[in-house]
């Protein structure tokens, strides 16, 4: 299990969390390649169906940041 790297989908608000991710990138900070970011205009747009579909497609966790 030490090699276990969870697949995580991150639903990020364009105006806050994604800006933070962008800034982190500019500062050459890294995050695991198993994290996939999906931009949203707002995390208010996140719907139960988006989360369920993500799990259906095999993610281990969903991260909602906004």
């Amino acid at each position, binding site marked *: 299990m030490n090699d276990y790297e969870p697949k995580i989908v991150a639903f990020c608000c364009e105006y806050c969390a994604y800006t933070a991710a962008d800034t982190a990138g500019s500062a050459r900070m890294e995050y695991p390649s198993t994290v996939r970011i999906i931009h949203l205009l707002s995390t208010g747009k996140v*719907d*139960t*169906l988006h989360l*369920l*579909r993500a*799990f*259906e497609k095999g993610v281990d966790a969903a991260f909602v940041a906004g």
Partner: protein
Amino acid sequence: MIVAERKPYEEIKEMLSGYKNILIVGCGTCVSVCMSGGEKEVGILASELRMSSKTDGKDWEIEEATIERQCDREYIEPLKDKVEKADVILSMGCGVGVQFISEVFPAKIVLPALNTEFYGATISEGVWAERCGGCGNCILHLTGGICPVARCSKSLFNGPCGGSNKGKCEINPEVDCAWQLIYDRLKALGQLDKLKEIIPPRNWSSSRDGGPRKIIREDLKL
């Protein structure tokens, strides 16, 4: 609207055991409004079942469809192609929808995904409450617009009973006494004199006591 709730997930899963091709049919009317059987709820249930299929090794093939109404033949018939491919139909409509889909497609098994509860109104977000008993002989004009059939626990026509306590019903302190509501409303309307009229015992044959009901409008028949 007709208010319904989704059945417990385990009960739905149990009903579906032994089938492979499952068509989930939502209804775009009442149960969409009370958020139990509309397009979104169909999507959620389908997603849950697809995940269960993988984790439990069920080999389910889930198809989704939501139609405008499950209580009108013209909306059900276009499902024909999807229905032909399905072993079973899981209706997310009210009890009317479940039965009417099976009347339109008599060769198919139609299962209920919801428990149909009552005719009600949206009190606030996520809160629905019963307002009508569908008894077939409305007396709201006599009771200040508040229905004692649906809202009095005993369906009393001349209330309140001795179980009314500070405006609440003896069955549950969270349930309003319908006859207290009727009194308050008639008082506010200046119509308290209506309470002096004793409402006679009624003929319940217009309600379920008369057996299954049917309306025929000759002027509308083709």
